[in-house]
């Protein structure tokens, strides 16, 4: 052991070069508590009394016990497995209500579909943050927008990991995903939190991947292998290639020079990773701004949306494209032809107003006019030229058949809505080759959540589309099952809970084997 090395390491603990903040986690730093924290809860409750459709954004007090749902119609015989969803559910403790929808602690919803029946249970993800706050019966840590006067100190991203955005099956477990920290490993037996996954364990990376940002939108290929990214606060992007069991195979850092503050989704083709960097600028590095992190995110018409194409084989940058300015939370799929032309689709917003709108809804401001995202098809040519077509269809939460991730697809399934709606009210399928649209409109009394295609025969256009919706007048959530080839006729089966669930974000289906 070398004395010089020891002293250097000891001095590092006091150096500014360590204990840095990975991207979004930076936002949780707080010095200035907002003066109107208490009023957010009051404002929401006042609005809720006038607008029942805010029911999906109310606080959830406790876990949901096992419940067998009542069924309308008939569940398909070949639809067997577990549909898992995740989303923020703990929005309030005592007088504090979080000020942005992205801040709440995650809750797993499990729908077990077997023998023509559906059983549901929902459980808060008992992360270290959730456990501490549950015991204290109050929020202890500031959020990106919600600043507490006496926030506990934060030594790493996972200290404040809410695990609230997505859930995937990995090995025999579930991973509940956030985007600024580690996956949270969940036991499928009891939905209990096991640990934060240290992504490099049992690989050559060891602890060097511990605590790194890991986005909530991994792409799982047909062989089970997992690709993902994480945005570092420096503007670099960490790219992960994991085995089907979650072991790190290859990890690299791409110098993306991105300063937008939010990078939510990405895409893969069979040969490449696409980092699609929206036209966002984070106005201020001042994390003490009492207006919050998300209000610092602005959209710039003058800034191109960049696409960095990364070689899967060695995680080096192959080339970069510049597109017209744009912003998307979500992408459907990407694929490429033998000549290297890349195609992908996105739900493109004309600006980033939606980021603030998802904060406003926490105050009960549901009617703020903001433009919807619309399906847009992009082509990146080997020559460097690009093309894009806006299909002029409101769209969000695009999904494709899971066996086609990174491969040629024709069908994109997504939610749609009337103009200026904060949540969706219909499900759609579009054939991107023919332009044909199949749509089912739930009506204005439903708040429709992400629906995902399930293809038991691994044939696009067959199988089912399943997802949840909240029926506002009766205050109940239902699970809907559509035939993927005919959405317009409505769900072929619908399973009702006697109560509603908090509106969530993303989910996935784990087929019974």
């Amino acid at each position, binding site marked *: *052991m*070398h004395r010089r*090395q*020891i*002293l*250097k*390491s*000891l*001095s*590092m*603990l*006091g*150096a*500014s*070069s*360590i*204990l*840095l*903040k*990975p991207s979004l*986690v*930076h936002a*949780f*730093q707080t010095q200035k508590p907002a003066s109107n924290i208490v009023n957010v809860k009051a404002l929401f409750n006042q609005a809720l009394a006038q607008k029942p459709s805010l029911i999906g954004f109310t606080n959830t007090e406790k876990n949901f016990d096992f419940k067998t749902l009542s069924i309308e119609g008939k569940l398909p015989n070949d639809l067997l497995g577990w549909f898992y969803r995740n989303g923020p559910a703990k929005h309030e403790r005592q007088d504090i209500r979080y000020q942005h929808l992205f801040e709440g602690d995650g809750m797993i919803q499990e729908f077990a579909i077997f023998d023509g029946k559906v059983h549901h249970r929902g459980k808060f993800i008992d992360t270290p943050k959730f456990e501490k706050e549950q015991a204290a019966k109050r929020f202890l840590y500031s959020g990106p927008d919600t600043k507490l006067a006496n926030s506990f*100190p*934060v*030594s*790493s991203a996972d200290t404040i990991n809410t695990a609230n955005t997505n859930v995937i099956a990995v090995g025999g477990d579930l991973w509940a995903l956030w985007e600024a920290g580690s996956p949270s490993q969940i036991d499928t037996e009891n939905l209990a939190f096991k640990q934060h996954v240290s992504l490099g364990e049992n690989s050559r990376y060891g*602890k*060097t*991947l*511990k*605590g*790194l940002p890991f986005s909530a939108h991994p792409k799982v290929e047909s062989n089970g292998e997992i690709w993902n990214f994480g945005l*570092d606060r*420096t503007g670099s992007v*960490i790219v992960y290639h994991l085995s089907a069991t979650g072991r790190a195979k290859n*990890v690299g*850092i791409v110098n993306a020079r991105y300063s937008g503050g939010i990078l939510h989704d990405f895409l893969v083709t069979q040969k490449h990773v696409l980092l699609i960097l929206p036209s966002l600028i984070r106005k201020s590095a001042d*994390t003490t701004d009492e207006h919050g992190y998300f209000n610092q995110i602005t959209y710039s018409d003058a800034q191109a949306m960049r696409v960095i194409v990364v070689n899967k084989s060695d995680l080096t940058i192959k080339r970069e494209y510049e597109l017209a300015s744009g912003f998307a939370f979500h992408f459907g799929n990407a694929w490429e032809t033998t000549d290297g032309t890349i195609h992908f689709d996105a739900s493109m917003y004309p600006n980033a107003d939606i980021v603030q709108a998802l904060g406003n809804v926490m105050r009960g401001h549901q009617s703020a006019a903001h433009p919807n995202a619309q399906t847009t098809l992009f082509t990146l040519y080997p020559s460097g030229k690009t093309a894009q077509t806006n299909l002029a269809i409101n769209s969000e939460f695009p999904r494709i058949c899971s066996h086609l991730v990174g491969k040629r697809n024709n069908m994109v399934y997504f939610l749609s809505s009337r103009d200026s709606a904060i949540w969706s009210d219909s499900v759609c399928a579009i054939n991107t080759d023919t332009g044909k649209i199949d749509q089912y409109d739930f009506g204005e009394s439903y708040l429709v959540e992400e629906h995902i295609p399930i293809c038991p025969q691994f044939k696009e256009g067959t199988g089912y589309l399943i997802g949840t919706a909240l029926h506002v007048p009766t205050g109940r959530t239902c699970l809907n099952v559509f035939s993927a080839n005919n959405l317009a006729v409505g769900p072929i089966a619908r399973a009702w809970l006697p109560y509603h669930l908090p509106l969530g974000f993303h989910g996935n289906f784990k087929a019974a084997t």
Partner: protein
Amino acid sequence: MYNFKKPLTIISLLSLSAINIATAAEIAFSIDGVKNNNGKLLVALFKGETGHQSGKPAQYNAVAAKQGKVVVSFKEIKQGEYAIQVFHDENDNGKLETNLVGMPTEGYGFSNNAQPNFGPAKYSDMKFAVSNDDAVIENSTTLIY
């Protein structure tokens, strides 16, 4: 010729010794939450903010890690302001292991149990004083893994 040098030196040494008896203190630093018995705890004592900023410890100590609580002593400490930093060198390579973006992946801690908050712990939170009257100063931390 009378040699003044020798007795003077003796007197000087005696004086210095007396001063040391009056001012030299011991710091007993408790390190809680040690995760396992692997490797060592490497503990650095910094004198004043200048010493802390320079990264050059006044003393450092390496002791075997033991699950639970370990107490490390620094002796012959003169009056002044001090701060302590420690890390658990689990793999015993003398190096603080970090992840790809520089976050520690081995346990660490600071005097006064000062906590990092979106950055390194502040010197102002970890500093403590040793005065002429102190015999044994007790301080503690709980390691952060």
